[in-house]
């Protein structure tokens, strides 16, 4: 085979092969989710292929299932509280990393990422031992503390990235125009970081919502949704779980689309922060 024909072959066959590969990867990623969704409408339960007798029955059962909704509520509360804790501690840490000079800064910068890299089992186990020593009774509160501390690093890294992109001259201009450091922080720095903060909040919320490992060690009497599902799976799969998973999937999808649109709009027009404030006012 001549060099030119092999070159031609790679030009034609290469993309075809790659397309097939891409489709396979895509199927591998999304087929399970598609099947999960499909079977949430399956009248025959989890068995049988193809799904027959499409029904909303599982959703009806789901909506009357008290324990599952309790766990959903628990998860939402935990995620929200963990998000607040992570932001309240993470944002000042990002500011310190960006602006302050202190001994051990480089070490701090690496250590703050550690909880993200550490297996959840280690974080969970060490927190469990800490709570034992401190004689704190396990409850949703301990889960909130666990998620909150583990996810501070997410807030710190996201906001730190935002700070690095911020034009410092804007803050100097604000000081120059008579605003104190505090006024400058609220009027200039925070609006410029709005996107990073919202991004961090969404990410923390999502990570907390589906967290299992840390929760597993710190759980008290009340279940979070992932633990509730996990507990039920041990008794066998019911399409009801498919149904709740489908609902979670839809909400995640909406969150992703909203986030993506915010981000792309921000790239076109950097004044996204102000627009967010405007829409919030109406």
């Amino acid at each position, binding site marked *: 085979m001549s060099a030119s024909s092999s070159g031609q072959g790679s030009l034609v066959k290469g993309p075809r092969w790659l397309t097939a590969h891409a489709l396979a990867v895509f199927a591998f990623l999304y087929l399970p989710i598609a099947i999960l969704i499909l079977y949430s409408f399956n009248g025959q339960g989890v068995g049988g292929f193809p799904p027959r007798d499409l029904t909303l029955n599982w959703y009806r059962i789901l909506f009357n299932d008290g324990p599952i909704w309790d766990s959903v509520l628990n998860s939402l509360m935990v995620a929200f509280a963990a998000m607040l804790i992570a932001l309240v501690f993470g944002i000042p840490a990002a500011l310190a990393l960006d602006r302050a000079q202190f001994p051990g800064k480089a070490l701090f910068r690496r250590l703050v990422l550690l909880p993200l890299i550490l297996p959840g089992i280690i974080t969970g186990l060490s927190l469990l031992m800490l709570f034992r020593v401190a004689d704190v009774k396990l409850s949703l509160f301990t889960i909130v503390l666990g998620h909150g501390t583990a996810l501070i690093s997410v807030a710190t890294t996201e906001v730190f990235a935002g700070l690095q992109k911020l*034009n410092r*001259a*804007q803050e*100097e*201009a*604000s*000081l*120059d*125009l*008579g*605003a*104190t450091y505090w*006024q400058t922080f609220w*009027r*200039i720095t925070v*609006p*410029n970081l709005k996107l990073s903060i919202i991004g961090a909040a969404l990410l923390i919320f999502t990570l907390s919502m589906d967290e299992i490992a840390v929760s597993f060690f710190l759980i008290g009497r009340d279940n979070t949704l992932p633990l509730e599902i996990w507990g039920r799976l041990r008794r066998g799969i019911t399409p009801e779980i498919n149904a709740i998973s489908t609902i979670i999937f839809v909400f995640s999808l909406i969150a992703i689309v909203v986030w993506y649109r915010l981000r792309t709009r921000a790239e076109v*027009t*950097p*004044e*996204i*922060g*102000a627009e967010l404030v405007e829409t919030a006012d109406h």
Partner: protein
Amino acid sequence: MATTSEPAATTSSQPSSASLLSIRSVAKHFGKNVVLRDISLEIAEGEFLTILGESGSGKTTLLRILAGFEQSTSGEVWMSGERLDTEPPYRRRVNTVFQSYALFPHMTVEQNVGYGLSIAKRPAAEIQSRLAEALAKVKMSAYAKSKPSKISGGQQQRIALARALVNRPRLLLLDEPLSALDANLRRQMQVELKALQREVGITFIFVTHDQEEAMVMSDRIALLRSGELEQVASPREIYNRPATSYTAQFIGHTNLLDADVRQGTAICSALKWPTAMPDGAALFSLRPECIRPASTTSATVALPTKSATVRFTAKLRDQAFHGATDLLRVESDGGLILTIRTASRDLPNSEARLEFEFSAADAIPVRATSLASNSEERH
């Protein structure tokens, strides 16, 4: 305005009217790196002073010390009899136009300009009227509701200016505000900015690396070299009487003549001219336009001054056409290469021997200081 003066009026290196700002022996070190060294400067009320220097000369650092974004390592800054450098930036009656403009992207043009007034909690009616006035002054009233990202660079520049001026500062600092604009717009803005400064009567300290810009706009130029003040004088004086070889080379073009002085006569190659300098080595600056083709008919009559005329013959090396003027490079009999600017005209072909002359008074003795680019002081 009574406080503003014609650039030509302030020819002395000392300000004529009352001093607004007093910079006293200011130095700035970044670690081992000395950025500013013993800077002392008095700036008059209503003056347009330009801090001119190459990149790395410390001009922006000096401006940032005045604005309050940097603390000087030693020295003091006073404004109208009060210590300025100990105040935080937000308590100084000093405003800045940033090189990048630093407009707030999340606010409209109007909100940007009104920022200082709203921070100062001025009454809404006053904010409205001052805002309208400031926007009108920079001809941007039509863009009040626009976002900074929607207006051009030149317009952003005007907004940055309005945002600073609306607060009626005692001192306006401008950090290379025209460097991002294209050449035509820049020339237009130079004229507008100078006119605006006369109109509002506020003291301007303008930082630039562009010597032409400095000449066009300033009442006085403070030339910085490697963190030290090389010369402070009006544009005319700094051009006509450069104190150092660096000044002579940085501002405009010049011929530097390395001469030997013996009993009142400077000797450089085949050139000889009378001087008041003491015996020994001396450096002279001779501007290219001070040398002209010798007038064969009436050699002495054409001279404006009574000072001695120095004649010499030289070979024409090359001739560059610059529109109204020609730039000649000639080699004098002793092998000295000189640059000469003359009115544009046809000259004989190269290698022609020509007669030139200059007035001895135009050979300005200068202190020898090298161009900073040759002796980069980095630690």
